[in-house]
Each structure stands twice: as C-alpha cells, then as structure tokens.
C-alpha cells in the first residue's frame, strides 16, 4: 500500500505534534494543570485503613513468627547439649549408662546426684514405673547400677552414721 504525498505530510505532522506534546508535557508541568483528584469516598478511606491495618498486622505477625522461631531455636539449643559419654567420669559401664540414660535426659541430673548403691538400684525401678523407662534387669542393670554407685556416691555425709541403717 502506498500513501499520497499529502497523506505522508499529514502523518508526519501528526507524529511531530505527538513528539512535541510528549517532549513538553512532562509530569512536573502537567501536575498543576491536572484536575484535582476527587476526594476519597468514606468507603475508600475505610478500605485503605483496613489495608494499612492488615499490613501492620501482617508485619506484626511476621515479627511474632520470627520471635517464636528464634525462641524455639534457643530452646532447642539449650535442651540438646552436644554431649558424649565423656561427660561422665571414666569407668566400666560408662558407655552403657550414657546410652541408656541420655535416651531421655541429659547427664546433668546424673552428675549432680550422689546416692547409696541401694538408692541407685531403686532408682531403676522408679524410672520404669514413673518415667516409662524400659525395664532394666539382670547383668545390664548390675552394670549400670555399679557404675552409678561407684561414680556418684553420696557427697553430703550424714552428721553421724544413722544407728538404724546398716
């Protein structure tokens, strides 16, 4: 398709005019001439406020989630100390004691205890009855109890040997 010279000239003029408009009608100049935006309706205001609230709520929720995650990480870290059997004093039965006892609890409660052999022995039954430990009997029990009694004897001596105890 071909255009007549007049049509070409008209098209060129329109394009030039367009370019002129684009070049001169920059936003800073346009702004003062732009018609004032109509005042927001009450509904629009309410919507904007609700959106702001929702955004603030989302931010708050995100902060709370982050805080909760951080708290959980702290709790997980403190509850799971990187312990090995070396946390307990050397001795025959240490590895077995470490494996069995730390299935549930860290070594702190063992290391801070000091009991007579009979009391350590009773503790095995108590752990089973009250804390759901698998029953410990026979040579395994002897190994565990002997290690505990040897490694963690009473540290607070009675003022005098009790005359009613052997």
């Amino acid at each position: 398709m071909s255009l007549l010279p007049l049509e070409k000239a008209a098209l060129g003029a329109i394009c030039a005019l367009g370019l002129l408009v684009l070049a001169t009608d920059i936003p800073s100049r346009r702004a003062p001439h732009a018609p004032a935006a109509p005042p927001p309706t009450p509904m629009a205001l309410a919507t904007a406020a609700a959106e702001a609230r929702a955004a603030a709520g989302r931010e708050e929720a995100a902060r709370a989630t982050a805080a909760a995650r951080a708290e959980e990480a702290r709790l997980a870290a403190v509850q799971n100390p990187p312990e090995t059997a070396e946390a307990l004093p050397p001795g025959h039965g240490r590895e077995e004691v470490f494996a069995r006892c730390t299935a549930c609890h860290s070594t702190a409660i063992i290391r801070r205890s000091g009991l007579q052999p009979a009391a350590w022995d009773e503790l095995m039954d108590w752990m089973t009855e009250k804390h759901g430990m698998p029953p410990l009997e026979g040579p395994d029990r002897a190994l565990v109890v002997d290690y505990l009694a040897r490694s963690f004897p009473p540290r607070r001596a009675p003022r005098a040997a009790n005359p009613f105890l052997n």
Partner: protein
Amino acid sequence: MARERALHELYAEDPERADALAFGRRGALKGPALAAMGAALGATIPFSAKMPAGLLPAALAQPAGAAPLLRMDGKAPLLLLGERPLVAETPEAMLDDDVTPVDKFFVRNNGQVPERFAGDPKSWRFRLDGEVDTPLDLTLGEMESRFEVVTLRLQMECGGNGRSAFVPETRGNQWGNGAISHGEWTGVRLRDVIRAAGPREGARFTAHFGADPHLSGDTSRQAINRGMPVAKAMEDTTLIAFRLNGQPIPQLHGYPLRMVTPGWPGSLSQKWLTRVMLRATPHDGPGMGGTSYRLPVRPIVPGSSTNGADFQDMTSMPVRGLLTSIAHGTRMPAGTRQIPLRGQAWAGDRTVRAVDVSTDFGASWTAMQVGAPPNRHAWQRWQGTVALPSDGYFEIWTRATDSEGRMQPHAAANWNPQGYGANAMARTAILVG
C-alpha cells in the same frame, strides 16, 4: 584451696571426727582447727563459739556439683540444673523484685518443651470433662470473654524447693531455695469454669493435662500430669492463666494457657494446659502415688527404702523466707557494723507472721518487719537491720514463722526418698573486711 578441700573431705568422710578435730568439747572452734577453717574461709569467724557441731560454714557448703549458668536470650543467668529436661534455679538475690520479672522465673520441666502453638492464641482449645453434667470444649478466647478475668500476684514453688538441704541427699534436682516465683498472673478462675460445667456429686479430684511430650519424644508415653482435691481447684486464687506480668505467657512457661495453683507444689500448675478432668478418685497419672509429691505421715529413717504406700500427697508448701538484698558470698567494707536487709517470705496456703534473722548461728535473733500480702497466696516483703560486732565471716540466717506459729527448722525435716518439703532456714555467707 588445699585447705578448703581438706576441710571438705574431712567433713565428707567423717563428720564426727571432723567435729572432734575442729570443735572442742564445749563446741568451740579451737586453736589450729579454728585457724584452718578461718584460712579456708579467708576470714576469722567471730561467732565460732556458737557454730553448731557438725555444721560446715555455709560458704563452704557447696551444693553437689556447682551448676553452670543458663545462657539464653530472654532468661537471666539462672543456675542451670539440667538441660533435658530443662531445669534452672533462680539465685536468691535475683528474687528481690516484688513481682518476679519473666526472665528471672525459675524453670522446671518434666517433659520436653513442646513446639510453640502456631495458631492464634485465642483459638487454643481447652476441655473440661469427667464428672460434670456438661463437658466444656472452649477456646482460650471464649474462656476470656465468658468468665471473669482476674489478675493476682501468686507464688509458684517447686515441691522440691530446698531439697539440697536433705541429709542424706535424695534423688531429684538439687534445688537450693530458688525454685520459687511470684508473678502477676491474669486469667479466669478454674472454679468458674468448673461451675459452668456443672460438677457432679462424685467430682472429688482433678487431673490436669498439658501438651508437653514425654522426654524421650515417644508419643505413647505421657509427660507429667497430676491432680488435686477439688477443694483446691475451687479456691478463688486457682487460675487458668493466659498472661504473665501483663504479657502472653512465654513458651517456656506454658504459652498460651496454663494452670496456676498457688501455694501447692508447682507440678499442679500444669503448663500448655489442654484439659482438666474431674474424677471421683485421686488421679493416677505419672507424678501421682508412691513417693511422688508425697510425704511420710510417720517419719521414716533418713536414707531408708520405702514404696511410699502410706505417704500422703503434699498439699500446702511449708513456710520459707529468703534474704534477697544481699547475695550469698558478698564482701563488705571493713568496719561495716549495720546492715539493712530485705527479702521475701511465704507460707503456702498460710501467711507469714514473723521473720527473724540471726548472724550468730541462731544463738540470738533480730525481728524483721513483715508486710501484708497484696492478695491471698502472694508473698510478703520483709525488711530490717542487723548489727555486727566486728569484721569477719558471718552467716545471715533467715527464719520465717507462719500464721500457725510454725518456724523454719535448722535442718530439712521429714526425710523422704524424693526429697520434698524441705524448708531449712536460708543461710547467706558474708565477709566483712
């Protein structure tokens, strides 16, 4: 340090001989022995003549295995008694606030700390069932809007607080005197919820359940759950709480909902509370029966074996007072002769009538002023001044007396295998000069 260890060993091996060496016939610390003990303490002991026989100075009487400190954002450096279960004690001098700040709350868990409830806390569900006409299934939000919300200052104390004073030592966490807190709790009265459910004639006991998993993580095993007589549940200070010191309860302390059963063993203040059941018979969950949270009715030989069959469940905690304004091991300038003192005292279901302080191993006592509790089951502030005769090593002994006239004893009484109910008077060692 060699001397200190020698003294420790002497007492640990043979206290009678240690006494014979260290104390003369009239109970006075003499000659080289007095010098040895003084050297171990780094001070003279002005009231050595009044030290009871067999008593190791408090400054030397370290609890079994000094505890490391809890290092965790959001918590003060408490004494870390165990990581799993997480157990931490508040040093006495950190209990000086009238309302215990959250970071200074002692920590006691039997199971694992559960994962934090991710939903809207108001959607947390709580169930009240058992011996009631209408079992209730409520959200936290419904509870808050349906029942009166109250805010009270309430003591919460571990049943084993003071355990490390038992001789011979018992099993369990070796608490000093710091397994106590005094928070400002906001919640609804358990009583109001029970009444709304219509308790039946046979509703005599409670059972409390929380969301914490067993320590092993095994879902077929239960973490601790305990119960109590309904009469305690109907007290107007027994709460189902959702705020502590004006804020949501921290995860570690039972977010978003827990019981607060003040004045009775803390294990009755179930954390992460999901359910209370009313029963016709005492609850039989872990933590009930045998020697658990139970005391001998007829005193038993310390260190002896028992299955606890004739023991009775603990109810009210015993009277106890603490010096909170001066830390154990404080050094004071030479010439200090007057010391202002301040502390807290409480007595379970009862109140504290008197607090007396001694600086001469109990030979003489000075009465302190004791304030009134702001509400029932709150602790009471005490204060006063003591005079010292000289520089040297002193122990400040604090002895509270409850409203029925019962005083704290010198030694932990009524020995039991799990070490409950010890309330020997507190001893704070100071060094002047």
